[in-house]
Structure formats: C-alpha cells, structure tokens
C-alpha cells in the first residue's frame, strides 16, 4: 500500500518538477530549434510511457498484494498481447527516430553560403581565425607552429596572408549568417560548446572537425570546453558575441591579419619552435583563472 502510494507520488512529482522547476533550456540563439523540438517530442512520447508503466505497476502492487486466500494466475504467455506491445513500442521508436533523423540530415548538410570560421583550441584557451577578403582560409600545419606563427599557417599559401587572427579576444559572429565552424586542436581533445547554440563538436588533434549553425539572436554567450582536456578543463572559457551586420563589420575592420601581426612568419622566415616562455605565461594565466574562480 505504502509502496503503491509512493510510486504514484513519484510519477506525479516528476511531472510537476518537469513543468515547474526553474531549470530548463537556456533561451536558444541559433537555428537549431529542431533539437529542442526533438527533445520535446521525446519527452511527450516517453513521458506518457513512463507515467503509464509506473501507474500500472502501482495498481498491480495494490490490487494483487499478498493475501492468504489469494492465488496467483498461471499464464505463461500471451502471444497476442506480446506482439501488440512490440508493435506499439516500435511505433513509438519510429515516432522518435523520424523527426530526429530528418533534423540530423540538416545538421550534416552544411549550406553552400556558410562562412568559414576556424576555432583553434589548446590547453586551455580558445583562439580563432577568419578568412580575409579572399574568403579562404590559408593552409596550416601543426609543425609550423612557433612563437612567431602560433596558428601554424603555411606562408606559401597565397590565401594565408590576409587571414584574420583573434588571439585571446572574444569571437564575434554575424547575425543570421550560416557559419561553418572548423575546429582544430594543437594538443588534446577539446569541445567547442555554447549552450545557447545547442550544437557542439569535439576538436581532435590531427584532424579538422566541423559543425554549422546560424546565429539567430544578438548577445554575448559563454564558450565552454565540453571534452575533458586536463586540469584546466573547467577554466577553458571564452565569449562569443553575435552582432548585427553593421556592428559586425565595424568589429571586423579593426581586426589584424596574419601579415600584419606576424610579418616575419608571413614572409616565410623560419623561427625556432615555440619556446617554453610563452607556455609558462599561459599556465600562469590559467592558474590565475583558477584562483579567480574560487
């Protein structure tokens, strides 16, 4: 009896919590409303099943509780019922999968007019590279990375000189512009995650990964790392600012290119490998982040 009541209360309480707790999605800022929709569809279908099974179980526990004069039924199988349940479940699965895979098809199909932005992750900071006026990013190679060429850009690539480099500053994105995020890591796995954008993807050293989105709302949003990347993982933060066209252009004008920031490297003059000194400043900076966070 007590157990049956507790089960009913858990079912009812879960529904109440779902609708009235203060914890829910952050307001979306990208085109991936289909992800929220898929979650809501999943909640509807599975929620009904969840509550139905619990309530039925509570009913059985109450109705068929042990009594001296009771004898259980003997029914080894009921093929009809079992098949019926199989098909109902299969229908539910199709109901979940169909909208999910349709939306996934959008996710894997990057629009042709998407602008490319590159995110470069390293322990534990975010840097970015934008194509210059030519609209193309120059080739990179991790072996070219040095103090004088922190992105490892290949100076022999004619597309490289006008690439815009953003180091240690906020990333700006234009409103309503489809964007293909190219993701690159120089050390371990990271994951570029902006909760309001919904979409996220790992950065994997040795390869370039990607995802796309269209920012749909101006504002400043936190960038977090969502793939464990060492002791500074939780402190690997950044900010992305979505601007309307005018503000974005204004910001873009003030950014510096590879050629202006690193004229030697852009001219193809080689440098020794990245020194420890720079890394030490990075580490100190992160220790400070840790302490500020405390």
């Amino acid at each position, binding site marked *: 009896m007590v*157990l049956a009541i507790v*089960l009913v209360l*858990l079912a009812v309480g879960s529904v109440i919590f779902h609708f009235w*707790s203060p*914890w829910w*999605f*952050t307001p979306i800022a990208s085109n991936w409303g289909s992800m929220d929709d898929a*979650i809501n569809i*999943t909640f509807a279908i599975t929620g009904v099943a*969840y509550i139905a*099974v*619990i309530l039925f*179980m509570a009913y*059985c*526990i109450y109705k*068929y*509780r*042990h009594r001296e004069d*009771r*004898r*259980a*039924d*003997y*029914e*080894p*199988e009921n093929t009809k019922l*079992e098949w019926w349940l199989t098909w109902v*479940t299969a229908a539910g699965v199709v109901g979940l*999968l169909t909208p*999910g*895979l349709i939306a*996934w098809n959008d996710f*894997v199909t990057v629009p042709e007019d998407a602008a490319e932005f590159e995110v470069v992750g390293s322990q534990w900071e975010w840097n970015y590279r934008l194509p210059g006026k030519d609209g193309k990013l120059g080739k990179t190679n*991790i*072996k070219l*990375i040095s103090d004088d060429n922190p992105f490892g850009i290949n100076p022999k690539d004619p597309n490289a000189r006008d690439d815009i480099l953003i180091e240690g500053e906020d990333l700006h994105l234009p409103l309503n512009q489809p964007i293909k995020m190219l993701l690159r890591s*120089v*050390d*371990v796995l990271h994951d570029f*995650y902006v909760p309001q954008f919904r*979409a*996220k993807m790992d950065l*994997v*050293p*040795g390869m370039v990964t990607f995802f796309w989105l269209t920012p749909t709302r101006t504002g*400043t*949003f936190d960038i977090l790392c*969502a*793939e464990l*990347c*060492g*002791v500074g*993982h*939780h*402190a690997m933060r950044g900010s992305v600012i979505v601007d309307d066209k005018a503000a974005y252009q204004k910001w873009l004008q003030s950014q510096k290119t590879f050629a202006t920031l690193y004229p030697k490297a852009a001219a193809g003059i080689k440098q020794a*490998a990245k020194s420890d000194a720079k*890394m030490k400043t990075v580490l100190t900076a992160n220790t400070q982040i*840790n302490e500020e*966070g*405390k």
Partner: protein
Amino acid sequence: MSNGMLEETQVIPLAEVEEVDLYHAHHWITKYVFCQDAKVIAIQYSATAILIGLVGLVLSWLMRLQLGFPEVFDFIDAESYYQYVTMHGMIMVIYLLTALFLGGFGNYLIPLMVGARDMVFPYMNMISYWVYLLAVIVLTVSFFVPGGASGAGWTLYPPQAISEGTPGIDGGIILMLVSLVLFIIGFTMGGLNYVVTVLQARARGMTLMRMPLTVWGIFVATILALLAFPALFVAGVMMLLDRVLGTSFFMPEMIVQGEMTSHENGSPLLFQHLFWFFGHPEVYIVALPAFGVVSDIISTHARKNIFGYRMMVWAIVAIGGLSFIVWAHHMYVSGMNPYFGFFFATTTLIIAVPTALKMYNWVLTLYKGNIHLSIPMLFCIAFILTFLNGGITGLFLGNVIVDIPLSDTMFVVAHFHMVMGIAPVLVIFAAIYHWFPKMSGRMLHEGWGQFHFWITFLGSYLIYFPMHYLGFVGVPRRYFEIGETAFVPPSAATLNEFITVMVLIVGFAQVVFMANIIISIFKGKPAGDNPWNATSLEWQTATTPPGHGNFGDELPVVYRWAYAYSMPGVEADFVPQNMPPGEVKRTDSATGPVAEDPPELHQ
C-alpha cells in the same frame, strides 16, 4: 529413411557422463583461501568487489562535496577532483559491477542453478579470482605512486590520458592500464568457465529453455564480455606502448607545453572506437545479469510464473547481439564522420524494443500475482522504475540530434548513473537479500532492510532525477567548478547542495546495510533450506549453505521449467524443478498428471 538419418522412432540414449571427483580441500588454506569451490570463490569475488566499491563510494562523496560546496574544502583541488572522477568511474563499472555480477553471482549461482557440482574448470576458476585481486591491488597502488592516480576520466581518452596537463601520467595511468589488462586476463579465465559450465554441466533434464533467466542473463553477458573485453585489452596495450615506448597508435602530432612531441600520425578516434566497442556491450554485461536476477526474484515473490519466458530469453539474446552495433552512439560529437549518426541512432533505438518488452513482462508478471513485498521484491520494483527512467533518457541520448545539445552535460551523468549505476546496484541489493539466506543459512534483518531500501531508493531518485535538468541548463560534466557564467542560474548551486546532502544520506544507509550483513552472518534468524518457497535448484540443496559439490549424493534431475508457481490443480503454490511429477500433490478436484512445462516451450 535409410540414408543414414535417424528413424523417427529411434531413441537416442542420454549420454551418461561419469562424475569426476572434485578436489576436496584438506587444509584450511585450500578450503578458505586458495579454494576451488565456486561458492567460496564467489564470496571472495563479492567481498573484494564490495570493498573496492566502497572506495568508489567514498570518492563519489568527495566529488559531490566539491560540486555542492565549491569553495569550502581546501584539500580538493582540480587535480585531485579529476582523479576522484576517474577512479570512481573505473572502479564502479569494472571492478565492482562487472566483477560482482559475473565473478560473484555468476560463480555462486551458475553451478547451483543448472544443477552442477561445481564449475567445470575449478582450478582455473580459482586463478581467475587471484588475478582479479592482483588487478584490484595494482589499481589501488596507483593512488599512492608519485603523481597519484590517473585523472584522465574513466574513458581514458588519448592524447589527454597520457600527456602533460593531466594528473597521474607518470605512474597512475600505467598502473591503471596494467590493472585493466590483468582484470581482463582474470575475467577471461572465469568467463570461459561460466560459458562451458552452462553448456556442458547442466543436470539431466535441464534444457536450455528450462534454465532460470538469471543463468540466461549471466550466460549471455559472459559471452558479450568474452567478445568485448579483447577490444579494451588491445586498446590498453596500445596505449601502454604509446606511453612507455613512445609509439603513436593514438597520438598525433601535438604541441604540449610549448614543445612538439615525438608522436606522429596516431588516431585519437581509433581509441574511442576500440573503447566503446568494449564500452557499450559493457553496459549490457552489467544489465543482462541484472535483468535475469530481477525476473527470477519478481516471479518468486509474486508467486507467479515470469510472463513470456521465451520472449524474455530471446530479448536477452537480441539485446546482446544488438549491443555490438551501437557503440558509436557514444561518439556523436567526437568528430567522426557525421553520417555514421544515421546508422548508430537507428540501431540504438531498435534496442529499445526488446528492452521495453522485458520491462512490460516484469510488470505483467506482477499483474494478477500474489505479491509479497519482501525486501528483495521492493528492490526489484525500485529497479523497474529506475531502469525505466534511465532507459528512457537513453532514448534521448541515442537519438543523435537530441544527443548533440545534451552530450557531455550533467544530463549524461544523470542518465548513466540511473541506468547502469543505481539500477544494477538495486538489483545487487535485491539479490543479496534474496540469496543471503542460502549463502549463510540466515535471514537478513527485515527492519533494517526496510530502512536501507527506502533511503536508497528515494534518495537516489532525488539525486539523479533533478540532475538531468542541470544538463538542460547546459552545465557540462567533469567540471571541477562551474564558476562564473551568464547562463547557469544561482538556483543551480542550491540544487547541487541538495544533491550532495542526499548523496551523503544515501551513503550512510549503505553503512547500515553493511552492518546488517555482518551482524546477520552471526545472529540472523535461521533461514531453513528454502525460505522463499522458490522452485529453482539452488533452493533444493541437501544442506544450507550447500557443501562442496553443491548437491548430496545424487545430482538433481530436472522435470520442468523454473517458473512453476501457482499451477492450477496443484496444492502448493510452487513446484520445485526437480520434484518428480508423481510426487506433486494435487488438489482434491484435479485429476490426471501434472503438466511439466507450459507446452509453448516445446513448440
């Protein structure tokens, strides 16, 4: 039909296998320490697993202290926090759950339930335990080496797991990998034993379709483990080579601390594929034995046959098979080719069908039953609810488009704790309350059991149900502290405090449970041979606890399936599997012989 095929009327005589003498111990060392009796090995496995599991439990408290009260505990820094995370996960999944379900319950229950004297290779069985113990010791030592235990996360993703910036790359990760390799070696010896015993050593009359579902669950889970662990084994060895000899299986070119490493062209994704090719079946290595145990306990305590036995068997087999083609659903955001998402989302959601059927059949077993709300039954009902909850959130994460926003958030943490933390642990409790009387001859204390049940069940629901919603907010997992953000409301900190307090309360209830076990071994109410009036063979032994060799002079002969509860026309509400049809007492009105199995089983 003269072309060598058998005539229809020809009878094939049963193969008579002479009994092989067991090695009977003469000294206390061979009786209690280096013992070949599966039941003693089972208890050794269980005790070791529970002890190291308690270490894992304490680590979870430390993690929760940090998450609930981020600025209070000075001794927890980011480094140690990630070490707690890593060791907690690895201990709980491998060294507690896998070892306890297969090494513990597998060893105890398989020979007894199939009517065998012991495992078929008792000596190898003994070695299996000692290698497992060595693995546990090596893992434990890693806490104390310079640099401490690994802090790479239990998934040990390279390059991070073995490169600067991660705790424990000097000794911790090496010992972790060595320990895993040892564990797999030990498990393989035990696992081969379980499979061969089920296939070769069943009592006369114990057909596969008469086996209790517990045996089916452990049997299929062991086959999964024998096929899945090699993937982890090679991944572990390759990572050891990368770490110790400087090979580059998983290590690409990278710049660490300003220096180019000597690694070249390795693939971090290859490790993830190998890890999850093991890691996903691992979920079912833990879940399938739990499914089986729950089926048997529900049936016994509801005095009703398990509903849809054949469906239950085939669902176990189907889930086991499907579990090998869903692994990359753990990798939707890994950067693998996104088109894989279509395939793995589909296979993953298909698994929901046989799993849901098992769920329905448990509940339908309760329907029209005669339900005794004993402690094992209470835990099984709690399992159904918890597993249902965790299974449903699996439908969220399996559906690739839904996984993208939720992946690597607290939603995932809540999901997998519900489905493969709390749910199997509830089954372990159910199983201990159910079989403890057979193992010790004494009952566990009912009142303390009630206390333990209510705190554990409600407490863990209150811990994990709200935690999903932190994931919706966007709180990432594996964060030492969330710090300042614009999107996490201050109320989330209050929720975190609440969860931490609940964790400590639930933890305290486990102390009561441990005390209950220890005291009941000596002072519990005597249980008798068959306190639950159960049908399966382990309850029909000549002595309780059963001696070496399990059964008396004669091995049991099996006449029917394990679910002959409340049969019409039979006086008692259960008929043991080994009771000859002639001895079954009929009700006054019933005539004719007692049906053995339900006819469907022989279709």
